[in-house]
């Protein structure tokens, strides 16, 4: 059975309507009208043990709200959710031992006290025995290279150090499920790499299942086997990275370096001109083809037959382009 099962999750928030016109500010105070905003609109998810799933979507898509329902903090307006067989919001304390969470924009550390104190308290809160606590803490501190700042107050730590602290805080009780809501936001490349390495390591050695929201393509490419993309509270895509590329940007790009000046009026069947740019002395042509229509080898042989090719590379669309495509499409949909 899947570890995380969500069916038709819906979460609505309602807030007072803001009045318009004369004395809007005062009238807003007394309005009894409310508007309902559907942050999550029928999301269904199945996550198997040991998966690392990227949960993507533009700002305000409903990612964090979904995660808050999975953690049991928010009660769904409708729909069902179970994590490890537990209904999170109904049985919070049993659920708490199953999950760990990092919300990159917040911290669960006691800011005024040394990092180590926060860990001590959390170990007690989660009932981690002294032996297990020492073992996990040593291991994590080693993995994340935290020895030098363990005794400093969390308030004085850099963002990268604090985030590592929060990651350890979420994992001390070794939960089978880890929710990461933008765990690398604002971090430098080294700090990001450390955090990714830690996540991968926990996934590999302890089989930790991870649901990760991020705006960092590197996180997705390096960690996730599978991505779920939502927007406006609805699932747009659920599948592996290859399928995502094939679905949204099926084309491949051929970059051709010409050995002679570009001939006039050339054309190649099923291969399209996408751009020309100069690179040092040479001229680079960007060509596109759809591997569903013409195979890569065929596209290359047609190209070399038509153009004076000195060098040639083929690449898949960058994940970033794919995501941009999806997010932009929604803007188009909204405007249109």
């Amino acid at each position, binding site marked *: 059975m899947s570890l995380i099962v969500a069916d038709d999750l819906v979460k609505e928030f309602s807030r007072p309507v803001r009045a318009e016109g004369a004395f809007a500010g005062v009238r807003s105070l007394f309005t009894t009208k409310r508007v309902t905003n559907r942050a999550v609109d029928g999301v269904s998810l199945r996550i198997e043990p040991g998966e690392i799933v990227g949960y993507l979507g533009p700002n305000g898509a409903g990612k*964090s709200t979904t995660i808050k329902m999975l953690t049991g903090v928010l009660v769904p307006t409708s729909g069902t959710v179970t994590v490890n067989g537990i209904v999170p919001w109904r049985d919070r*304390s049993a659920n708490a031992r199953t999950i760990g969470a990092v919300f990159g924009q917040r911290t*669960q550390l006691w800011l005024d006290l040394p990092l180590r104190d926060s860990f001590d308290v959390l170990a007690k809160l989660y009932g981690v025995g002294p032996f297990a606590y020492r073992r996990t803490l040593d291991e994590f501190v080693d993995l994340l290279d935290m020895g030098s700042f363990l005794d400093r107050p969390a308030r004085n730590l850099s963002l990268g150090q604090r985030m590592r602290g929060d990651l350890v805080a979420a994992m001390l009780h070794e939960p089978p499920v880890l929710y990461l809501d933008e765990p690398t936001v604002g971090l430098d490349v080294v700090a990001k790499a450390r955090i990714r390495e830690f996540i991968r390591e926990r996934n590999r050695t302890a089989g930790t299942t991870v649901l990760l929201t991020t705006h960092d393509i590197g996180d997705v490419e390096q960690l996730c086997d599978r991505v779920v993309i939502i927007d406006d509270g609805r699932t747009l895509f659920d599948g592996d990275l290859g399928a995502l590329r094939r679905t949204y940007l099926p084309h491949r790009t051929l970059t051709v370096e010409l050995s002679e000046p570009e001939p006039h009026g050339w054309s190649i069947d099923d291969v399209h001109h996408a751009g020309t740019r100069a690179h040092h002395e040479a001229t680079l042509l960007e060509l596109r083809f759809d591997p569903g229509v013409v195979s890569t080898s065929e596209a290359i042989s047609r190209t070399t037959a038509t153009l004076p090719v000195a060098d040639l590379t083929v690449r898949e669309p960058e994940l970033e382009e794919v995501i941009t495509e999806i997010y932009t499409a929604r803007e188009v949909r909204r405007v249109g």
Partner: protein
Amino acid sequence: MSADPDDSAAARTFGEGLALRATLVRQGTRSVLVFRTDLFVGIVSTLLRVVLVLLVWRAVYGDRTEVSGIAREDAIGYAVLGVLFAAAMQPWQFSSLRDRVRTGNVVFDIMRPVGLITQSTADQLGTTLASLPKAVVGLTLALVLGVVPGPSTAWQTVAFAVSSLLGLVIAIQCNLIVGLTAFWTTEIGGAYLVYGMAAAFCSGSLIPLWLMPDGLAAVLRALPFSAQIFTPLSIWFDRDPGWNVLGELALQAGWIVVLALAAHLVWLRALRRTVINGG
């Protein structure tokens, strides 16, 4: 301290539950004491307040030895003790719950295997313990100046100590319930301000309830605020403590049960409408 719907204390042994609470309390205390300068400033300000009320009440009494049946030394002693109780039990910042709801960090409290009520009350108890040094230094000054009379009997001292403890529990419960309203309104600075003034007045920490008009005094005695500070202080100044003291203690215990139930209900409703601020 209060029954907590989310607390899995049942899964732990009693001893473990107690050790856990002690840890949370200590964490609350240390979070305050880490700011040493703030503690020293707090001590100085408490001493100043003791001296100020001393001067004010001496001026109020002038040459009189008694006003409305209250002896001069009792009124002055009461006012000084009232300042010290308020310093310990009615802090400027009642609970971190307010900030945690505003910033959305409360998400972590809700996610933990120990309920928010347990975490919040333990934290408040810790904060209160951290303000005890202020009260102790103030009390020492008051005793040195001879403005606070010692209790007459051992039984009165014990009753006073028990009543103070019960009063502290009631104060923490009231603070908690006000703090929980943040789940509805997000910003409760105003609520805290009103509550702070109401508590200071109604608990009798500013003016003894003895001096209030009869009708008002009766209303105030029927509210939980008076059980926070006025009850222990009135036991201290009772010239002839008898069985009525037991009644007072029972009343405080009753308030604790009622407030625990109220906090429990408010929290259950708050949970259903929780909104976590921020992305």
